[in-house]
Every structure is written in C-alpha cells, then in structure tokens.
C-alpha cells in the first residue's frame, strides 16, 4: 500500500544462510519491483527454494535483510508476519493441499480465515478461481482423488483466492502437460499485466520461463550468476547460463553440487552391510 512504483516490493540485501558449514545462500542481494515477473532459475540444490523460503519467512537467515512491501521481515515474530502474509499468495511445489479437506474447502480456506464474506460469496469466489485454473466442478473431490498436476492448479487457485499483490510460485508448471503449462503461463501474464500483480517464479521449465519473465535471475552456489531480461539471458555469453538454458549435459555447471550437503535434521543411517561407507564422518 505504501509502495510506490520505484520502491521495490521485495528487497533482499546481503542475504547469507548456512546449513552446517555450507553456505547455501552466499551474500545474495536482489530487488523486485511492482508488476515484474521475476524468474529464478538454477540447477537442483543451488538454493532457489531456500531463497524462496527465506523471502516468505518460513526460514530465518544467518545474516542479511529481507524487506517485503518495505517492511523488514527477518526480525518479525509470527504475529507480525501474519499481516504481511495475508498480502501474498504462495504456490508450493507439491501443491501442499490439506489432505483432509476437499478441493473447494482448500481454496475457500484463506477466504474463511481472513475475510468476512458470506458462505454464498465464498462459494462464488471458489468457483471462479477454480474455473480460471481449468478445474470447474472439482470442488467436492479430495486431493487424493486428483492428479499431481491438478493438485498444483488447485494450489494456484488457493494462492490466488485473496487476490494477492504478490505471488510466489515454486515450479508452477512441473508435472503439467504443455497445454496446461500454457494456460498457467497465460494466467500469470494476465495477472501481472492487467492487475499489476508481482510474481516470483522458481522454475526449471525454460519455455515457460522465457514466456512469462520480465526479468530472470540465474543462481549457482548460492549467489546470482547472471541476471537480465529474457533477451539478455538468451544472448548471455556466460557458459553456465548457456548450458542451463539449452539443457546440455556437458558444461561448466558442476554436477556434484549436493554431494557435500549437510542434512542437519537427518543423521544419515547407512545400510547394515555398508556400515560407515556412506557415513558423514564430520557432521
């Protein structure tokens, strides 16, 4: 609300986060402006999802600052974050639908919790949102009864339920067929162009990325390797970027990026017959 056109919607400054000894995000800074569609690309394990999780506030950085709508979120407690979170929508990689509720109830959930709409109005909004993602008439199904791609589209409908100013998508098109991918892309374009929504999209899908992006960022080893408009990225002479956007097996991008990754939450448990062989000796 207090964001003007030239003030960034999201401002990440010198973000640094370690898991164990490994720096997953290494002094990263970026700014995202209103109406932009920023695509974040990068190989698996390069820190894309971790960056997204920091921006939405479910992970706290080791150091650095994140401002959303001009407000510093890293120092906020849960209750303060609630106010910010009502203004953005998030599409999770797996959809993250509540398995105990129906599709319709899932989409209705943010409306029931955060608005004073009557049940009839909520039903109408749910119908509309499901229709724009191509799932008209699926309200009464349970998430377990629909396919992975459908779950993702329901997740998108839920993320859009409150008409957010800001949408985060974690791989919105993986698991969708080419036609549905195009539909979801067009939806993203409509929302950003016509309603001025800002979108931050993490994706591996290069066709979709070049279709929707106004600006692209390529991450590697926790920092930004390249950034620019889709044309700049396409013509970028960085060999890592070229390897990634052309999908080549051989090139400068290291394949062993996640080998020395620490999993602080799970102590690796070797098979009995291979005891110690895969064990992390310096946890």
């Amino acid at each position, binding site marked *: 609300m207090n964001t003007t056109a030239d003030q960034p919607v999201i401002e990440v400054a010198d973000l640094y986060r370690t898991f164990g000894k490994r720096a997953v995000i290494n002094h990263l800074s970026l700014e995202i402006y209103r109406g932009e569609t920023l695509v974040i690309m990068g190989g698996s394990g390069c820190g894309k999802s971790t960056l997204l999780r920091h921006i*939405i*506030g*479910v992970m706290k950085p080791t150091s650095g600052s994140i401002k959303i709508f001009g407000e510093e979120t890293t120092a906020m407690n*849960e209750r303060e*974050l*609630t*106010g910010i*979170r*009502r203004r953005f929508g*998030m599409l*999770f*990689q*797996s959809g*993250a*639908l*509540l*398995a105990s509720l129906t599709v319709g109830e899932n989409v209705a*959930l*943010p409306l029931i*919790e*955060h608005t004073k709409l009557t049940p009839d109005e909520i039903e109408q909004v749910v119908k509309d949102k499901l229709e724009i993602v191509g799932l008209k008439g699926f309200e009464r199904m349970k998430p377990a009864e629909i396919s992975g791609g459908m779950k993702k589209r329901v997740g998108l409908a*839920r993320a859009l339920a409150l008409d957010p100013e800001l949408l985060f998508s974690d791989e919105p098109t993986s698991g969708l067929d080419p036609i549905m991918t195009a539909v979801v892309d067009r939806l993203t374009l409509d929302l950003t162009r016509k309603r001025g929504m800002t979108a931050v999209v993490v994706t591996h899908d290069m066709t979709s990325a070049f279709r929707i992006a106004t600006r692209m960022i390529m991450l590697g080893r926790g920092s930004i390797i390249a950034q620019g408009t889709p044309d700049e990225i396409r013509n970028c002479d960085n060999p890592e970027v070229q390897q990634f956007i052309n999908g080549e097996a051989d090139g400068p991008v290291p394949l062993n990026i996640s080998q020395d990754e620490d999993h602080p*939450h*799970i102590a690796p448990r070797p098979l009995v017959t291979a005891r110690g062989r895969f064990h992390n000796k310096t946890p």
Partner: protein
Amino acid sequence: MKNYLQLNLSLLYWVFIAPFKGQFFKLSPIIRQMVFIGVRAVPMVALTALTIGITLAMQSARSLQQLGAEIYVPNLVTVALLREMGPVLIAVIVIGRSGSAVAAELGTMKVSEEIEALEVMAINPVRFLIVPRFLAMLVMLPALIILGNYVGIFGGWLVCWLALDFNVAGFILGALESSDLWDLYSGVVKSVVFAWLVITIACNAGMHVEGGAEGVGQATTKSVVHGLLAMLVSNALLTVLFFFGR
C-alpha cells in the same frame, strides 16, 4: 523439551487468551475431532473396561474366598477400577489409538508441506490444527474413562452374579458402600491430566517431524512411548498426592 514447552504456551494462549481478543475457535473441527478421538474409541474402551472388570472380580473372588470374604468383591472391584485401573488402562488404549494417529497425521502434514502452507496463508497451525485436537481430547478422555468405569463395574457384576450368586442389590450396595465420590473425582482429575499430556506429546511429536516417512514413523513411536511414560509417572505422582498425602 523446549519445543514442548513452547507448544504448551501457545496452546494456552490460543485456548484461554485469544478468545477474549475476538479470535474464537470454531466448533465444527472440535466436534469432528471429538468423534474421531472419542466416539470411535468407544468399542475398544468398552471391551477393555469389561475385561478389566471381569478379571479383577475373578482374581479378587479367588483370594477373598480363602478368607470367606467374597462379600467384599464388589468393593474391591469398584475401588480398584475407579482409582487406578480405569483411568490408566483406558488412557493406554487412547494413547495407542488416538495419540499415535494424531502424531502420524500431523507428521504427514508437516512432511508434505501442509503446515508450512498454513503458515504462509497466515493461518496459525496451533490454532487451526492443535486446539481442536486438544479440546476434543480434554473432553473425551474423561468421558471415556467415566464410561469405562461403568462398563468395568458391570463386568465385575457379571462375575458376581453368574459365579458368586450375588443379587443385584447386594452388588450395588457393596460397591456404593466402599467407594465415595472422591474415588470417582480422583479418576476424572487424573484423566484430565492424562489427556493434556497425551495430546500435547502427540502433537509435539507430529509437528516436529523431520525427514520423510521414516521421520513420521519415529514421531509416532515417540508419541506412544513418551505418552505412556508421562502418563504412568504422572499417575504415580497423582496417587501420592490424592491418597497418601492426606
């Protein structure tokens, strides 16, 4: 442990403070959980209580017969059931059935990013997921234990009636004579404490699952083992407080 205390504090906030700030909890999820935690456990609880009542009566009948004191069977059955056997064994059943289910359900939700999704939608997971389960357990475990007391005493009566030639009035008089209301109340107070421990331990285990299916399995086991231990230790402490301190 720190997580557990945090969970209890935020639970207390959402149950006792938030309603006065205009954030009431919704009734329908609580009722749904009451049906799941309580109503569906009735057959198991009834069967458990019936077998406890019957075995208590048979064992005490054998011992008391040697003293020529079968007349005291109803007294023994009633007191043992109300004070100890009812609350403890029914809590065991509820831990095994509902505690583990709650831990597994919340753990699966955690693993499949559902809890994170709730947080991002600005819906507090404690309010949305734990408060209904907590309140449901707090109401239903004492209710199940009162039901179990009745069924267990009925089991004892079956033995007295079929094997020891008691008449109904004799049994009821014996039962009433030996026990006072405090025996019933102490069992109910215990059951409220058990309910609190069982559900918070199960929810805490579920909410802090890390990793995939393996983590969910570990959390489920943890909820049962820790739940049982906490319940038995608190039972011993409460027995000291109620029956030895006075």
